[in-house]
């Protein structure tokens, strides 16, 4: 069965003023849709057709690059839409807060390290908060790679990710990636991050 582009779990303008409606609409309806369609086309008639996306990503080194790029793009954007929401908690709470404190010392330390990963990723890519056993680490990947891929330098389960492809921020922030990343913290859905951590 082909992969389906899910609707956004909120309106295009729900993340204003941090992420603008026009960016959200093009990002979801054009970019994410293209990854989904290209992934389905590339899988059609192959042995991997019908496999869960996580399984495909876990063996991505055996796949052609078109599946790596579009499979990653499909999965990463699904995660991205879900780990954002309007009006959520400003910071992690409860069990997730404990793990963040244990892994990084404090929320502030986590934020600095995550921001640094997002700003130093040269070119297109993602910064990640990754679950490894009971703790969390930060990494970044180029293009549409992610920590579920067997070829990732830092492997684990992504629980939070920020898209630093220029398409994620150029209409509103242009060259100012730091402003976009700072704005992103205002729309993180920490409940969903916690859910993914508890997985």
């Amino acid at each position, binding site marked *: 069965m082909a992969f389906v582009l899910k609707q956004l779990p909120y309106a295009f303008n729900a993340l204003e003023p941090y992420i603008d409606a026009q960016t959200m609409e093009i990002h979801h309806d*054009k970019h994410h849709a293209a990854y989904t369609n290209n992934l389905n086309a590339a899988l059609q008639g192959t042995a991997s057709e019908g496999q869960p996306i996580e399984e495909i990503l876990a063996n991505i080194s055996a796949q052609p690059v078109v599946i790596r790029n579009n499979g990653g793009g499909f999965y990463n954007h699904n995660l991205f839409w879900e780990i954002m929401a309007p009006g959520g908690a400003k910071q992690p709470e409860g069990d997730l807060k404990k793990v963040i404190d244990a892994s990084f010392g404090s929320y502030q330390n986590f934020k600095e390290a995550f921001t640094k990963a997002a700003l130093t990723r040269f070119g297109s890519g993602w910064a990640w908060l990754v679950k490894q056993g009971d703790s969390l680490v930060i990494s970044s990947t180029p293009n*549409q790679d992610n920590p579920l891929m067997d070829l990732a330098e830092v492997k684990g389960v992504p629980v939070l990710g920020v898209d630093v492809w220029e398409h994620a921020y150029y*209409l509103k922030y*242009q*060259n100012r990636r730091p402003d976009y990343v700072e704005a992103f913290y205002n729309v993180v859905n920490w409940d969903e991050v916690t859910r993914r951590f508890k997985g």
Partner: protein
Amino acid sequence: MSFTLPALPFAIDALEPFISARTLEFHHGKHHQAYVTNLNNLIVGTEFENADLETIIKKAEGGIFNNGAQVFNHTFYFEQFSATPATEPSGALKAAIENTFGTLDAFKEAFNKAAATQFGSGWAWLVQDAVGKLSIVQTSNAGCPVRDNLTPLLTCDVWEHAYYLDKQNLRPAYVADFWKVMDWKTIEGRF
């Protein structure tokens, strides 16, 4: 040595409506400028402090390579444009393109494909090797054919910042408009 940002060789709005003044303000004034500034900061106290750009592109790694190559790539890119471009190659370059690709249209089709399929940030190039043979190559991020001892003749920046304000996700539309302001006279001069 300290590098400086070369001025655009045309007015900021000269390429309208194909490449907008707003895009060029950011692309040249912010991105290209940032690569120059970063490079100047990064080389201080390193073996590249007094190196020329070619040496940096061929020998440096990491941030010095990325910023050095992007300084070169963008200067090379902006130099190609004109409000009154020669829209076709002539003479020896025309013959070489036809010899390699069959026709100018066939070359453009192959180049467009290279530009469209470079996944993520990067560049499409027409290059010449040591014996003068032409080919089309793609590079990712700051990648530059000079590092591989190839002579670049023509390039298209396919980082999203090159076209997102004007064309958003429609990279092929950007590449189609790119040809309308690409001056073949500049390319002949490089050949």
